[in-house]
Structure formats: C-alpha cells, structure tokens
C-alpha cells in the first residue's frame, strides 16, 4: 500500500512541456478514449500527439463535442459554426461540459482549471480557448451576450433606427438577431402595399453591429476605449442581396473584423434568415477613435440613464474607480 500511494502522484503529474514520444501504448489508450468519436477525430488526435501541430486541434475538439451531443442535434456540428452555443443550441449542461473537458484533457494531454471553463459558451470559445492554451497565447476576452437594454445604453444609434434586438460580442466578431416586426416606419412606403426590408437598412444593421463590436469587443490601447461619438460609415464593397426579407423574418446578423488600424476598421458581414443568405457584404469600413476610459461611462449613461443597472459586470474596466 505505501508503494502504491507513492507511485500515484507521479502518474498524475500534468505533462509539462515539449513533445513526448508517442508510443503504441499511448495510441491504444487514445483509441480506447476516443472509441465513441469519429475516425477523423481519432486520426487528428494521433497527428497532434505525434507532431504537436496545433492545426489538428480543432478537429479533435469538434469530434469530442460531437460525441457528447445527443444524436438528433449532431447535424448542427456538420457544418461547424463557431457561434453554436453549447447550452442553448447543443443541449449540453455543465456536467457535459466537464465530460468534454476531461476527454479533451486526456486526449490532448493538458490540464484545464475550473475557472477557465466558466467563459466557454460557444463552440468557437472552446476552440479558441484550447488553441491559445496549446500555443501558450493569452486568452481572448470571453463572448459577451448583450440584451437590448445594454445595446441601447451603449450605442450612439437609437430607436426607431436601431436594428439589433440582441447580440453577442467576442474579440473574434459579433452576432445579432433582428426580427422584422412590420411596424418599422419605412415599411409603409417600401413598398406600396408590399412591405420589404430595404437592403440598405440591412447594410445599416450590419454597420450597427460593427459599431457594437468596436464599443464592446475590440481590443484597445490600455486606458482607452472607442468613443461612441467617433464612429462613422466610410464605405463598403461587394454588397449583394440574395433574398427578399419581409415582416416576420428573423434576421441573423454576423460581422468579423478583417483589418483594424486607427482610424479605420474594416469588417466582413452577412445577414441570414435561418440557413438562407439574405445579404453578403465583403467589406464595410467605419472610422473610429479612442477616448480615455474614465470619460466614457457618463456619455453612455446619458444615452439611457435607467439602463445603467443592467450593464453586466464585464464592463467593469469602464468604471473610473478601477481604472483610476
């Protein structure tokens, strides 16, 4: 018994660094661990363990997530969408997250702490998290989910010209939903007896989401934030409308930053209804500028005074007490 106790801690030690020879026993253990995963998942894991090349990691992570998702929801992972939410879209709970993590730890020979798990809400979050961890890079800001109250309190654009109902923002991009209610004022005239959402307004909505990204998701200089009053539209390229959108349609908006160098930020964007493309924008470019972090809260609060309470705690850096 004393020997057994002594030998255990050594086995439990996390692998430190540097590639370790991948033995046939390791391969057998890996095969057993991944026996309920797809063959490509196993292959990717073998490649990663042999070479240490992080390119193989996303396939392993997606394969492990797929294995724990109920069969009738797995098709959602076929066309991997980084914005798939683990709980809402894939039906997993925090226990399943733990099962996913334990298997990923085992397969990729890494250790993940409990506090690192809390911010992982989407498939993209998990992939980015594991990737940064393996490459030894700092973790990006977690995805923030913003309700309409928060959007209204930070945006320079306000109703009736605000076309975002809810949004999620991470450093990698932003997504939002907008439901065409039919009550929009411009639909009275666009068109006569035939309400159709103007493509120009959908482009505007994507621009608004890019504004939200600049305010909430963009990585800024220390002590600075993007000033809401500094953002304006400058141009767009490659705009195509693919689908007529009418009252009742739920628009899913998505933007990703392509280039960001003050004073210009360029994004790609899309509007979809379900799986159908509605509008694709190759490039939309905005101007922006920085202001001191301490100066920002008062202007945001002034826009919607009662919304201050609803601002989630992630906006803490805006608090002058903390930055001072």
């Amino acid at each position: 018994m004393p020997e057994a106790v002594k030998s255990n801690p050594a086995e439990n030690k996390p692998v430190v660094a540097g590639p370790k020879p991948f033995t046939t026993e390791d391969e057998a253990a890996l095969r057993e661990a991944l026996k309920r995963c797809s063959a490509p998942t196993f292959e990717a894991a073998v490649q990663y363990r042999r070479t240490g090349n992080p390119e193989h990691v996303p396939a392993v992570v997606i394969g492990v997530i797929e294995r724990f998702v109920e069969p009738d929801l797995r098709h959602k992972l076929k066309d991997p969408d980084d914005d798939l939410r683990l709980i809402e879209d894939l039906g997993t709970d925090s226990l399943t997250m733990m099962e996913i993590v334990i298997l990923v730890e085992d397969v990729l020979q890494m250790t993940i702490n409990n506090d690192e798990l809390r911010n992982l809400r989407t498939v993209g979050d998990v992939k980015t998290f594991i990737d940064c961890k393996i490459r030894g890079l700092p973790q990006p800001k977690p995805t923030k989910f913003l309700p309409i109250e928060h959007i209204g309190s930070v945006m320079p654009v306000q109703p009736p010209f605000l076309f975002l109902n809810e949004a999620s923002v991470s450093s990698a991009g932003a997504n939002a939903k907008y439901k065409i209610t039919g009550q929009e004022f411009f639909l009275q005239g666009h068109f006569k007896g035939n309400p159709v959402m103007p493509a120009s307004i959908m482009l505007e909505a994507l621009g608004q989401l890019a504004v939200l990204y600049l305010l909430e998701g963009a990585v800024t200089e220390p002590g600075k934030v993007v000033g809401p009053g500094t953002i304006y539209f400058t141009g767009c390229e490659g705009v195509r409308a693919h689908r007529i959108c009418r009252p009742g349609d739920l628009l899913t908006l998505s933007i990703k930053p392509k280039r960001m160098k003050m004073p210009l930020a360029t994004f790609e964007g899309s509007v979809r209804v379900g799986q159908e493309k509605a509008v694709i924008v190759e490039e939309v470019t905005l101007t922006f500028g920085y202001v001191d972090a301490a100066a920002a809260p008062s202007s945001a609060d002034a826009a919607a005074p009662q919304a201050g309470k609803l601002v989630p705690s992630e906006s803490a850096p805006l608090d002058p007490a903390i930055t001072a």
Partner: protein
Amino acid sequence: MPRVFITGLGFITSIGNDSGAVVKSLTELRHGFEVYAPFQMPEIPCKVLGTIKEFFTDSSDPEDWTWPGRYSIKRETIRSMAPNGLFAHCAMLQAIEDAKLGMAEVSSPGTGLYAASGGSPMLTHHHHERLGKVGVMRCSPVGIIASIVGTLNFNLVAAFRIRGASCGFSSACASSAHAIGFAFDEIALGRQERMFVVGAEDGNLDAILPFAGMRTLSLQSDPDIASRPFDTARDGFVGTGGGAVLVLESEREVDRRGVRPYAEVRGWGQASDGYNVAIPQPEGCGLQLAMEHALRHAGVPAAEVDYVSAHATSTLIGDIAEARALRAVFAAAGATPAVSSTKALTGHGLSLAGAMETGFCALGMAHGFTPGSAHLKTIDPECAGLNVIRETLPKAPAVTLKNSSGFGGANVSVVLKKA
C-alpha cells in the same frame, strides 16, 4: 382517514419485464434463474442468479449498456445511472403508462417518489479504482451520483421531473417496503395525492457475491432447485436484481381520474428485532410485532387475512423465524391463511424485494390468483402448521399481508385489500 390505492405497476424482473410476463410466470410457477457466467470461477462458490433478460449492464460504462428498443433513454439521462437506475427507469415508464398518467400529473407538486436501492457496488468499485489510477480530476463528474445509495432517487426524480416529496430508503431488504409504508403515510396525511414507490437493485456479481461471504447464498448449481423457501433442503437465497414501480394514489385522485385500482393499501406496520445486525431474532418477534401493528393500523382482524406473501428468502434461519412469527399471529386467531414466497421464482431482490412482491400481490388481487410457493417438496418441520401453498390458486385473496425484513432486524408488514 383518506384511502390509498395502487393504480399502476411496472416490472423489470427475473421472471418478466412487464406485468403480462410476470402474471404468466407467477401462475405457471416459472422461475427466472440461470447459471450466471460471471460466477463460473473456481473461487466463487455460488453459481446461479435471477437474471434480467433483454438487458446488458455488466459494463461500468453506461454507454455500453443495451436495453429493449421500446424504451428511449438519452445519454445524458443514462450517464449518471447505475444498472438499477436503468431497470427502474424502464419500470417507471411502464407504471406511468399503466396508471394512465400524463406528464403534467407525473411532474406536479402533488406527486412524489420514494425509492430504495443498495446503490451500485460495481460502479463504486470502478470509480474508486479509476480515482487511484488516473487521479480525481480525470474521473467522471457523475461517478458519485451513479454509485451511492441514493442513486435511484437522484436519477428518477430528475429524469421524471418529480416535484413532490422524494427520498431514499436504506433498511436493506426491508427498504422498498418501508418506502411503501411512508408513501402511504404521505397520501394518508394529505401531503401528496400520488406517490411513486420504486425498488431496484443491480443484482450483478458485485451486488450479490458479498452475501456468499456471509454464507447466506445457495450454492446449488441447478437453477431448478436453488431457491426453495420453507423446504428442508433449502441452503440459502439466490440473488436477483431488476426494478419494480408502484403508483399509489389517493381515493380522490382515483375518483377524479376514473381509473380502476389493482388493490387498496389498507395500512402498514413496522418493528425491529433489537437482536442482531444480520441474524433474525429466532422467534421472529420483530416481524410478529410488525404484522400486528399493520393489522391494527389497517383495522383488519388476523382471521380476515387469506394470503401472506412471506419474506422467506430460502435461508436456514430466516424462514424458520418468519414461520414462528406467522404462527404467533395467526394460530391465536384460529386462522390458516395461504402462505407463499415468490422468491422461489425470482430470487431475493434485496432492496427491490418489498416493492416487487407487493406488486405481485396487487397483480394477483386484480387478475384473480394467489401465487404459489414453488420448488417446495418437503416442508421443514420447523415451518409446520403453515398453509404453504405449492400451486398458484385461481382465486384472488380478499386481504393480503406482505412481509419484508432487513439487516439490523428491521421488519415491515403491508396490508392490501381487494379494491
């Protein structure tokens, strides 16, 4: 006092995986024993088990398990279960359908669930072994939920969205009889309108073999004669697992829903031997007291009981103690109710026994039969004076007394009346 009725039943047992199959086995006295492969090792003295057919649960990984395709159970439900949870889950689905309950009635503040299982020795062993081997942070997050004694109620209460009273009972082989008694109380006291009572056990090598160390298991290798309660040649019990579910409902619910109950639970009683941790008091004084309490509570004189479903497990000491207790209760009243032990057919289901056998009694009362005591050739002279019936009688008893006894000298008696 409000009256309580049995309105639904579900069975995954060694003698059948639904009510129809169980009725057939009980009336034709067909046992559920097989030579159990994991026991066939030279160092294992017992050979026979009351096996659960159509299920494979001998793996420590629930995702390896198989069960009949008519039950659809999700991975996230099965992952925290022991084998006894799977058996009981299937029996729950049967009982809900049998009682004609909608999900709104199952998941309501008026519906509770009391359960009893001995936990899962197999999974406890597996998870602790893994803990030592790979470290705790690589162990299943639900290992403990699947292993410990409350696993059955944890899983079922969550899976069926139970919102009323829930609790687990742990008095070994009296556990699910206790669950029936206290479920009766919940309804009789007006706290709940409906209670699920669940008994279940893994009934596999890890769950049963330790009893060989106590010298309480039959060492017979012939499945046809291994379990024979009250017989002179009996040499111990045969283990079994499975799951049984009873739906208990208030009279008001029975009337409101217009369902036809199997039987009425008239009352119950319990008492303890105060004697030994495992050996029954030789005169069965605790069991005698439990029967007397139950009859008094039910307001039924001993002479009106026409069938006793005995606890009798086919052990040397236990059957005699129960026989003496039965004589003490009924001889004084000049009564000779029919006595039988269905463990001759099923084996001993431990925590499952009380619920399973009360379910059998309810089936007999509704379908018009009194289960016989199988495999009885020569009655033990110590058990003389009892009317142990060797064949199933084609007549429903009007009043049934169901006995259960467990470690520590716990004894429970339940009185059922024809509805």
